[in-house]
């Protein structure tokens, strides 16, 4: 029976199911796109009908012309690409530093359980603190450029440490016991069991971090930068040029989407091995 079915190709009911499945996926995509279109149309139309004050919102149609106009550097203002680049570099630096330091600190806490017991309440409080309260202080301590990196790191570091450490704790103790039966040293347990076993946690931390580092950079730039999207937002709102603000925010949305996509690709590549 089943052989005959296979010879005749997939059954009609299966083909029907496949069609429905595809239609379902298409519906979701269309709905997603539709939502974006509705949002943009409302944003364009409501200010034009004077239902909301265009001074506050600008129009989506001004974003592209503003972007083109800002491509050229003027004596007073760098090109928008330079602003974007500056923000991206600071984010990548902050986020890499948070990952590297986060793994190192979590490994130290795992290595010396007493250290974790001592630091635990401080880590939890440091994580709960609104780090943005330190923006002005960081500016004084670290200067214009370093304070931005510092803020990016401060916002993402503590949650990274806590996440990765709890990932380390979540490794099955029997896997550690197994390594011990072969006489594994503490260093071998760390490199052969704990770290490779924590890759899913590392990727989860990466996802959280990408967003948080960007927050840190933008907030840092509000205070101290003369370059960067955070600075552009601050500058644009001060002189009431909402088109500059909205263009910078749109670029930010694109940058975060690209970062999300990059991490998503990394995740798929790594998880294929599991």
């Amino acid at each position, binding site marked *: 029976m089943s052989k005959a079915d296979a010879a005749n190709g997939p059954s009609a009911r299966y083909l029907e199911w496949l069609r429905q499945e595809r239609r379902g996926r298409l519906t979701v995509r269309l709905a997603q796109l539709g939502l974006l279109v509705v949002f943009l149309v409302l944003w364009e139309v409501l200010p034009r009908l004077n239902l909301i004050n265009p001074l506050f919102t600008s129009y989506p149609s001004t974003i592209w012309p503003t972007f083109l106009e800002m491509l050229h550097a003027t004596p007073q203002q760098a090109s928008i690409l330079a602003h974007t680049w500056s923000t991206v570099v600071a984010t990548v630096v902050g986020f890499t530093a948070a990952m590297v330091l986060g793994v190192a600190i979590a490994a130290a806490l795992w290595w010396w359980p007493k250290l974790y017991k001592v630091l635990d309440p401080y880590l939890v409080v440091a994580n709960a603190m609104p780090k943005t309260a330190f923006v002005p202080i960081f500016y004084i301590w670290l200067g214009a450029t370093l304070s931005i990196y510092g803020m990016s790191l401060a916002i993402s570091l503590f949650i990274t440490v806590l996440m990765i450490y709890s990932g380390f704790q979540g490794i*099955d103790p029997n896997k550690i016991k*197994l390594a*011990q*039966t072969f*006489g594994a040293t503490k260093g071998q347990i760390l490199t*052969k069991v704990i770290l490779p*076993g924590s890759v899913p946690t590392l990727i989860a931390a990466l996802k959280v971090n990408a967003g948080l580092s960007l927050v840190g950079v933008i907030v840092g730039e509000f205070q101290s930068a003369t370059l960067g999207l955070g600075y552009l937002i601050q500058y644009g709102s001060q002189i009431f040029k909402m088109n500059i603000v909205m263009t910078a925010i749109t670029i930010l949305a694109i940058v975060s989407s690209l970062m999300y996509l990059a991490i998503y690709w990394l995740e798929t590549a790594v998880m294929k091995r*599991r």
Partner: protein
Amino acid sequence: MPGAGGASPKVELRDVGLRYFGLEGETEALKGISLSVAPGEFVAIIGQSGCGKSTLLSLIAGILQPTEGQVLVDGQAVTGPSRKIGYMLQQDYLFEWRTILENAVLGAEIQGADMRKARERATQLLTRYGLGQFLNHLPRQLSGGMRQRVALARTLCTEPDVVLLDEPFSALDSQTRIALADEITDILRREGKTAILVTHDIGEAVSMSERVVVLSRRPGRVKTEHAIAFASAGGTRPAPFAARNAPEFNGYFNALWKELEVHVEG
């Protein structure tokens, strides 16, 4: 009593005791355990859950140190994990990020052995256990029985003299369990390994081992020892599956059942 015979014992426990310390007080897990296992012997240790069976194996493996007494392997006190001892845990604990072959050479890698030789030996073992075409697969692509065979290859890859088995079949379904018990017993006998099996399954203990040691409830002590022999099978030791059908099997089973004082709570 086998093991007390002419040859010096492979594994010997002298009046071993172990206490755990906690803020609520001390727990005596094992007390006054004396036991000796001859080279090439297959000993099963049975007892109810919580009687310290697994702890006993951890002591022999050198992962835990006894609070009293001495554990000796080849007449030498055990102070830490030794290459002479291989340990099979209750589950396979294969690392999901390593291929089958990489999992099988884990022990050799940790011990800093010659990796080329280790890979050769692991490939040989895995092929012998019918896993030759799965060397580069990941653990999740294998069934429970296949995974436990990989765990056996991982244990034997480092060429230990003594193999400790901590309920190695408990995670498997009953058919796979019986089939794998046959395979593993055969492999261990053929390679002349000394084996110590911990289990709460009386049938498994009787069918696989030459001697069954019964531990009492906590604190675990050696309650009795039973030599297991199947005269009906002639001079040779039957495979576990055949042993289950031998006329002697039920006698041993019932005697051990009484010893364990099994009470079904309800």
